[in-house]
């Protein structure tokens, strides 16, 4: 059963299996184990970014496509649900229509960009995707009548998902089961299901062809595979998964805007998540996204504690000041890349069991 769920792609290392299980259990029980709005928000972001990083890994790790337009598809998902909810109301119908429109839009753009650009060399494709993503970001900022411009869009969700809605009268394990918890489980459940779908895709015969293309495009062609078609389909699948991540993120935040979905910083973040976790492993996306989001969320708090603890020691409190968190985040990534050149999953699998 578990083997089938994992598409016959077990973690391959006890430590990796334990780490993945810890992430899964942590996310599944987050509302009960880590109560509080902030920790629930971190858990939801982990779930969304695992999906987003996994969808990027399908392109980068499995197909060898370097795309900088991935956040554009993430943004299309966010804006799809945001525009629909802001324009047509907060019903399930408008959310479904916005989601379908976003998915159709992403598929069409990914297909066009892929078909027109995947014939060219990787560096040119990367440049084209960068230009398209920048164009889309400017478009979202300029068309303020539709997208809310730089301010973005706030919108309401169906009442069952609102924090004020109590699903069960009495607290369960000390936690009020309200619409916010339901929203969290909606995000977590969808992200988990889509991650398993991606895992199934990369372990299918289609995924095997993608790996072959990544390794040697000419050899794959000589075996009879139209590499442009496979790369275009992979591009569309990656884009659709990123759009779903965008939909879930907007659903969780009840807001969408350029900074939360379209920013180039997010593109760099997901690139780091994939590289740190391990390219071409899918499980790498889980560990990479979890470590990244946790570091981004709690590094400042840890630095504050460290700074207070070293009070009186020369230089250290200033170096460990919470405002230096980006510096330490950078150091953390340099250390990760130095010690895990094939990513964390690559290192763990190399020293199996």
């Amino acid at each position, binding site marked *: 059963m578990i083997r089938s769920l994992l598409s016959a792609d077990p973690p391959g290392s006890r430590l990796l299996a334990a780490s993945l299980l810890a992430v899964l259990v942590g996310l599944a029980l987050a509302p009960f184990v880590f109560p509080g709005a902030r920790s629930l928000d971190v858990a939801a972001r982990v779930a969304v970014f695992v999906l987003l990083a996994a969808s990027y890994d399908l392109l980068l790790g499995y197909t060898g496509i370097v795309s900088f337009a991935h956040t554009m598809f993430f943004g299309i998902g966010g804006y799809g649900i945001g525009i629909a909810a802001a324009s047509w109301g907060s019903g399930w119908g408008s959310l479904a229509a916005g989601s379908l429109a976003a998915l159709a839009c992403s598929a069409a753009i990914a297909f066009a960009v892929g078909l027109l650009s995947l014939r060219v060399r990787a560096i040119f494709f990367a440049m084209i995707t960068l230009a398209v993503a920048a164009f889309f970001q400017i478009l979202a900022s300029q068309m303020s009548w539709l997208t809310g411009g730089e301010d973005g869009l706030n919108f309401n969700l169906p009442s069952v998902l609102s924090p004020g809605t109590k699903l069960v009268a009495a607290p369960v394990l000390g936690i009020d089961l309200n619409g916010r918890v339901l929203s969290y489980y909606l995000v977590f459940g969808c992200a988990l299901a889509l991650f398993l779908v991606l895992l199934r895709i990369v372990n299918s*015969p289609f995924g*095997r*062809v993608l*790996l*072959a293309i*990544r*390794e*040697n495009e*000419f*050899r*794959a*062609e*000589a*075996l*009879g*595979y*139209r*590499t442009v078609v496979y790369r275009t389909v992979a591009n569309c699948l990656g884009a659709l998964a990123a759009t779903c991540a965008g939909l879930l993120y907007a659903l969780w935040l009840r807001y969408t805007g350029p900074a939360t979905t379209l920013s180039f910083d997010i593109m760099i973040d997901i690139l780091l998540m994939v590289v740190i976790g391990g390219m*071409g492993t899918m499980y790498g996306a889980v560990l990479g996204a979890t470590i990244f989001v946790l570091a981004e969320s709690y590094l400042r708090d840890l630095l504050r504690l460290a700074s207070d603890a070293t009070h009186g020691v020369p230089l250290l409190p200033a170096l460990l000041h919470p405002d230096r968190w980006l510096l330490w985040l950078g150091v953390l990534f340099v250390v990760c890349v130095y010690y895990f050149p094939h990513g964390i999953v690559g290192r763990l699998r190399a020293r199996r069991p």
Partner: protein
Amino acid sequence: MPEPMLALSGVNTRIGQYHILQGVAFEVPRGGLTMLLGRNGAGKTTCLRTIMGLWRASAGSVRVEGRDTTRLPTPELARLGVAYVPENMGIFAGLTVRENMLLAARAGPPDEKRLEWVFGLFPALRKFWNALAGNLSGGQKQMLAVARAIIEPRRLLLVDEPTKGLAPAIVANMIEAFRELKRTDTTILVVEQNFQFATSLGDSVAVMDSGRIVHTGAMADLAADEGLQQRLLGLSLDAHQ
């Protein structure tokens, strides 16, 4: 006279500023094994890659079973039943032996009998079925490259230097495998530097020099004529036996 399996006529191929193939013309008869010989840099590999559509001919024509395939994309050519074994053990190192083989089985999971036949030719592949192809020895990688090309019946098999860098025992295994392969319907064109391998297997031969075909004929005739070997290939048979 029956139509040849493969016919090249006036084929020119340029790679960047280099004019590699300069009017290559020869035929590969159906059913047998043809050797394409020549010194290093004569254009043999370019010739195979041009036939396979991996490099485009700037002039001339390539015909497979009478059909003009000069402009046909490589995947289409593969679908016509033309298989290509690149030089330097052209396998997918990041995939397992099993995955490499499944990748080549375009019509679906390989037929059990066919797979057993392939295992009979290359027993090491059964042993390392689930091993990462990148971890195999050089000889095993070459076996996998050939096995991958024949996992399904092919009309024409193009093989680039199958014995390059292999130990004598593996070369002997490879010769036996090609002998077995010759008993099937597959027509084979092999680029080779190992003259002993060529004489052991070749039915016909084409010799290239400086991007042109300078000799075609029966392999047995070339094997018997030491003077011709000296003139065409710059070698003496003694040095290769």
